[in-house]
């Protein structure tokens, strides 16, 4: 009807121009890093960045889906602390316990996530409040269980964090496969479509009879499951879990999501943007390391990035 012809094909791409900005920033940081340090350019450092980003990538993946529905999962930090402490605490150095505990931890993560989802559906309380409350509950539980590092894992357990397949870090490969699967799910499964619809217009989704409850259980359950994966990975990386392992992950998991162009109000975005966001932040931290900047500044940088990213992507609403 109207003169929309010239922009037809690229409609969705144009809407996600921000992702291109993130990709460009990645390149700029890479070039910058290469200038400031010779060691930065080494293959082992680049692989190191991939390795370091695995935990963040896992949590952010679950967070992306929660935010796509217009919600948020603020319980991820405490959940990782709890699950990670339980991992080393229950394995307690025994090789025979590794597999059963790992499976149990993943199921427990899923279960806690589903609890979040059920509470959101039943109580009709905003996910922000439900998961914030859940976060406090979980933190309390883990401190009841242990006030410090708990148990231990067999030395071979660290292959998850430091092992390689075909010369690539296991975690990094796993991440790429998992992100790809979730991207395919979002694009090709009906439930994937409904995640976007619920986030776009929750009332509208109800009027159309879309299964909101199923959507909520899926995204929060999946977020819990991702926390389980992250907890196992981090326990492997640090060789032990302790009650504050996940402390910074709540804010950290939101940063890549919003940097990657997913709207906080939901309905728009995707997991590839998040992955780019994860790499951008890991790269930034790596570069700051090479510049000998204190890790405290990394936290400050991260906070500023979230605010800047949201202000760039926010849909310019009519302001009166």
């Amino acid at each position, binding site marked *: *009807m*109207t003169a*929309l012809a010239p*922009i*037809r*094909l690229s*409609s*969705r791409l144009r*809407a996600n121009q921000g992702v291109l900005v993130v990709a460009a920033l990645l390149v700029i940081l890479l070039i910058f890093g290469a200038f400031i340090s010779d060691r930065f350019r080494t293959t082992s450092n680049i692989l190191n960045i991939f390795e370091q980003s695995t935990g963040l990538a896992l949590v952010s993946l679950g967070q992306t889906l929660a935010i796509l529905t217009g919600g948020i999962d603020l319980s991820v930090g405490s959940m990782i602390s709890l699950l990670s402490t339980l991992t080393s605490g229950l394995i307690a150095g025994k090789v025979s316990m590794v597999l059963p505990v790992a499976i149990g931890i993943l199921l427990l993560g899923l279960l806690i996530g589903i609890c979040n989802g059920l509470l959101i559906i039943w109580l009709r309380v905003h996910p922000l409040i439900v998961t914030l409350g859940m976060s406090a509950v979980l933190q309390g539980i883990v401190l009841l269980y242990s006030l410090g590092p708990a148990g231990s894992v067999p030395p071979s357990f660290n292959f998850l964090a430091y092992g390689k397949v075909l010369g690539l870090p296991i975690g990094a490969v796993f991440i790429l496969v998992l992100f790809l699967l979730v991207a395919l799910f979002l*694009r*090709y*499964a*009906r439930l*994937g*479509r409904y995640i*976007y*619809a619920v986030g*776009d*217009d929750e009332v*509208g*989704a*109800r*009027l*159309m*009879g*879309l299964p909101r409850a199923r959507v909520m259980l899926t995204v929060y359950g999946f977020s819990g499951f991702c926390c389980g994966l992250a907890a196992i990975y981090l326990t492997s990386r640090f060789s032990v879990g302790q009650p504050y392992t996940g402390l910074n992950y709540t804010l950290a998991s939101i940063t890549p999501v919003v940097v990657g162009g997913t709207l906080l109000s939901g*309905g*728009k975005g995707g997991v590839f943007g998040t992955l780019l966001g994860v790499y951008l932040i890991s790269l930034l931290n790596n570069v700051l390391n090479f510049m000998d900047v204190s890790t405290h500044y990394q936290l400050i940088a991260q906070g500023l990035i979230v605010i800047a990213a949201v202000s760039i992507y926010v849909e310019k609403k*009519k*302001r*009166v």
Partner: protein
Amino acid sequence: MLNLSGISKSFIGVQALSGINLDVRAGEIHALVGENGAGKSTTIKIVAGVYKPDAGQMEFEGKPVQWARPADAKNAGIHVIYQEFVLFPHLTVAENIYLGHERRNRFGFVDHARTRQDASDLLRKLGVDIDPQILVSELTVADQQMVEISKALVHKVKLLILDEPTAVISGREADLLFARLAALKAEGVAILYVSHRLEEIFQIADRVTVFKDGAHVATKDIGDVTRDRLISMMVGRDLKDIFPPKKPKGEPGKVVLKAENVSVEGRVRNAGIEVRAGEITALAGLVGAGRTELAMGIFGGLPMSSGSVWIDGEKVDAITPATAISKGVGFVTEDRKGQGLAMFLDVAANISAANLSAVTRNGLIDRRLENEIARKEIDNYRVVCRGPATSVATMSGGNQQKVIVARWARTSRKVLILDEPTRGVDVGAKTEIYRIMRGLAGEGIAILMISSELPEVVGMSDRVVVMREGAISGELTGANISEEAIMSLATQHPTGKVPTAEVLAQ
């Protein structure tokens, strides 16, 4: 097909429906008419399973039914096209059309190519040229409506409900809709059609039901009623008793608010307007024509990409709402609850909200003075409430509206802009608001009223400026103001009449 008897529904103390009856037969187009607040939308939402009735019986296909959720009604074969669209702006046209009915390949995955192809075929069948691949947020409002209509054609429906489908479309698109409705009717679909446009009801409907104030007034064959009879049944009184007399002919008032060449990104193109002292000027046009955006731009609430504004002959650069208010301009927004009233404060606080300095003594708010002013205005505007300390949240829409008008009338002694001043207000309160508006004009205030209700525009305005697709399409004064003339300017149909479906089917 559908039979409602004795359905009642109330919302926190407000009786929205009291024992209404309605039956819609297979293969008929049944029009439902009534003023705002008559209970049409509530009825639709009960049939659609959004609300549960407090009392009464609903039968669908001869069997008593109770919907627990909208999905139940949908699965039974009821499709509703709501006035406020159910479209997902970040999904494409094709994805929206098949939402809930995804095209899937044999592995159960969403088949994007087929979704696109089917959507494209469906839109072509409907007769519109919309690219199924673009995001819905990029469509014009009229095209969005066509997408909304095409959703009804995806699967077999038994009862199709349309709530004001032509509020945003007209001319060619409306005819495409009517042609499609005629085809569905021939297939035996029952159609419940809610509209304000009486012309089209006489054109397409078989029977008509009138609601007033939540009650059933009458159901008639369309051949048995006249237009005037319908209106008086809807309103419950004669038209001349509703609108106060207009400004007597004579010298036009002095131009108090003038804007030239105003553009607002994507919504308004090079529009100019003059509003005169002592007159009521209406800004008319279809929903989405850019009326609110033009007024908001002039008021400084939306950024203008070009344009100049004069208040009382003085050019105002870089206008903001604060400067506009300080120069005596007020804006009563359409959305009372969101942008107008502080719902948790009382009447007195709401009345003084726009000009707190008038009730401030020594840096503190003087509650006694504030209450005194409130009491005076409550009297003046006949606001029905217990007193200045009444919380506005407990008051009816009409009385809330009077409170806002009272607030602005105290500070805005030059220009008062009112956006849909009688939306969601019952007839009695409407009449009062009209009287207040005319009274303020009589005091020399220039009034700019944005309204989608043609009878209101015709009944109230001394001057009508009509917009179409973001631009001014014409101005009418005095005896030239008629519904037909306004619609013709709003849609650019030279005759103002809608061509018949047959003409279009060719």
